């Protein structure tokens, strides 16, 4: 599943994920009917609007062996929150989907392993932002670090307070922008203090929010999804960056 944000804002994340999965020996399909997991409505309390979206996702992805998503947040939605939306037959179907849903980096370290890379190490100081849902719902913490080490030869320069939310929070960032901006600033300040030039993460929501704030503040940080880094030294501009 390509997340809605990758679809709309950062297609290269989707293509990078496909390349990585193929490199790990998978046959990859992105179903034409896929749109979004329905989190915005769900998290805003519009549960009845989220339910049919979830049903559509369940139906769309039922034929596949694995559902791999380049986002801890959307993976968490499918894995943890879908089953809670239903009872009876739909709950069974949601649980079946949950059981085969994986976040990309965890899938690449536990199910389909990536072969050793044939390219040179990435010449960049990288720090990593752990998305909250990935961290707390999907158990994603050491996997992206391990992959960056193995695939890119990069040792992550850790953020202080790396378990604290960046302030994206879906609709939260637009409904309470001032608080959200303060949280983004904290995260960005830690990123600058880490000495890294690249801020990587596994969730585009967080990254778009941080990139937008970094751009507003004129910070010199290249912000990228981890799939872009793992798939090969990316040449295009970072998130929110213009073409030189």
């Amino acid at each position: 599943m390509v997340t809605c944000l990758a679809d709309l804002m950062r297609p290269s994340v989707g293509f990078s994920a496909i390349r990585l999965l193929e490199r790990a020996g998978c046959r990859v399909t992105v179903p034409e009917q896929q749109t979004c997991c329905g989190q915005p409505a769900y998290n805003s309390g519009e549960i009845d609007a989220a339910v049919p979206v979830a049903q559509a996702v369940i139906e769309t992805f039922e034929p596949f062996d694995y559902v791999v998503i380049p986002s801890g947040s959307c993976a968490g939605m499918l894995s943890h929150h879908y089953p809670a939306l239903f009872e009876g037959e739909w709950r069974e179907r949601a649980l079946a989907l949950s059981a085969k849903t994986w976040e990309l980096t965890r899938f690449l370290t536990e199910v389909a392993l990536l072969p050793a890379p044939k390219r040179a190490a990435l010449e960049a100081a990288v720090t990593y932002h752990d998305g909250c849902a990935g961290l707390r719902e999907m158990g994603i913490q050491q996997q992206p670090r391990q992959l960056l080490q193995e695939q890119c030869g990069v040792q992550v320069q850790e953020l202080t307070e790396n378990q604290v939310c960046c302030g994206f929070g879906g609709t939260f960032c637009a409904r309470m922008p001032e608080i959200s901006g303060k949280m983004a600033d904290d995260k960005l300040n830690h990123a600058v203090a880490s000495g890294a030039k690249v801020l990587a993460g596994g969730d585009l929501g967080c990254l778009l929010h941080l990139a937008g704030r970094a751009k507003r503040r004129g910070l010199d940080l290249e912000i990228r999804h981890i799939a872009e880094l793992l798939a090969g030294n990316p040449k295009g501009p970072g998130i929110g960056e213009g073409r030189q």
Partner: protein
Amino acid sequence: MKVASQDFLQQAHEALRAKDKVERRDLLGQFMPAARDAAANAYGDFDGLRAHMKRVRGHTTEHLAHYLQQFEEAAVAHGNQVHFAATAEQLNSTVLSICQTHNARRVAKGKSMVTEETGLNELLLKAGLEVLETDLGEYIIQQAGEAPSHIVGPAFHKSLAEVRELFLAKHKLGERALESVSDIVEEARGVLRERFLAADVGIIGANALIAEHGTTMLVTNEGNGDLCANLPPVLIICTTFERLLPRAEDAMALQRLLVRSATGQSHTCYTSFYSGPRREDDVDGPLETHIILLDNKRSDILASDYHEILDCIRCGACLNHCPIYIGVGGHAYGWVYPGPMGSVLTPLLTSLEQSHDLPNACTSCGRCAEVCPANIPLPDLLRDLRQEESAQQLKPARWRRGLRLHAWLLRQPVLYQRLTGWSMSALGLLGKRRGAFRRMPFASGWTSQRDFPAPEAGGTFMRQYAARKRRGGRRG
């Protein structure tokens, strides 16, 4: 206490502008979690302890009437007078009438969130009583005429310099330096000691009610609560039925969770179990003791989908771990209980109409649930409240319409992809040079704080993917 939660956003805005306070809270947000984590790790199987407590709570809740009756009978047998109050007003008037029966003039209070909730002080003061908060933090905010900003450290928002100013103005003690925190504590100790000794009535809360013995557990570090419980001739314990636990051992298990989660200690200085008035063998202690059990909508909550919030032990860990609480501080929340637990409790104990911003002051990051010693699924409860906000049509209408339109569109993949394909291509082209937009129609919430990153050039993923497939499956 009066509810000001409807002004959350404005209050948060003001809180974020006071840079020195922001820095103080940021520090709090760093060292309190560190202290809690160290203590939880040193404990051994802390998660096992949390799970154990959850089982005990579940059992107690299932048989609450039984345990309440057991507690009441034992407490009465010890010589306590047990009162029931359905509302805040009933608790307040019960306290007042006890004070009036004894012609009391001076009341010394230990820290009690329940009486903050009912606004007891206001009523007692209006009736001409002298009411003294004795917990140092509570004393400070009482002198300053403020509400607590934190349920464990009510005056965490005050700097040493501010407390110094306050004491110099309020205590007429002449010239003195009052330069260190120790000086402040020493002065408060001196001032309050006299008044402890002169108090006619002591009022405290309870951290647990032990059904089997009819005793109440009081956990403090300062010893002020114990002075209130031991010196004045009348003691009133203001509490709520969800503090009930079957056995003393359960209260000890709770205390283990509480101290580590609240302050990172392994034991508080004073953990006391009080059973009632002075015995034949006693040479001190109150001659009369009252226990007032407040409901104030708790029996409604118990019967609702939010009943797990009643497991809250008031440790404040969810506050310390919440980046939004740390960002805006307790006063922004506009009532007694702030942070995640407060954002659940405030709508339930006051009204969602007044406080529906609070459940939205959450990114669902899950850090509160991760550390909650009572394993309360706070983010889920907050989401449920957001659902109720929608159901009651309290959410801004344009938000609601937007979200529902979006959800509808998601189920029309062809239309969705055509619309997004077109608009993202356009945005991608427009924003190609700068990479981001400073302003964006319909996204003022986003762009008030951040630029809007432009979509990557080349169109949406789905459009490019379809094109590649048409070109014969060339990938990557």
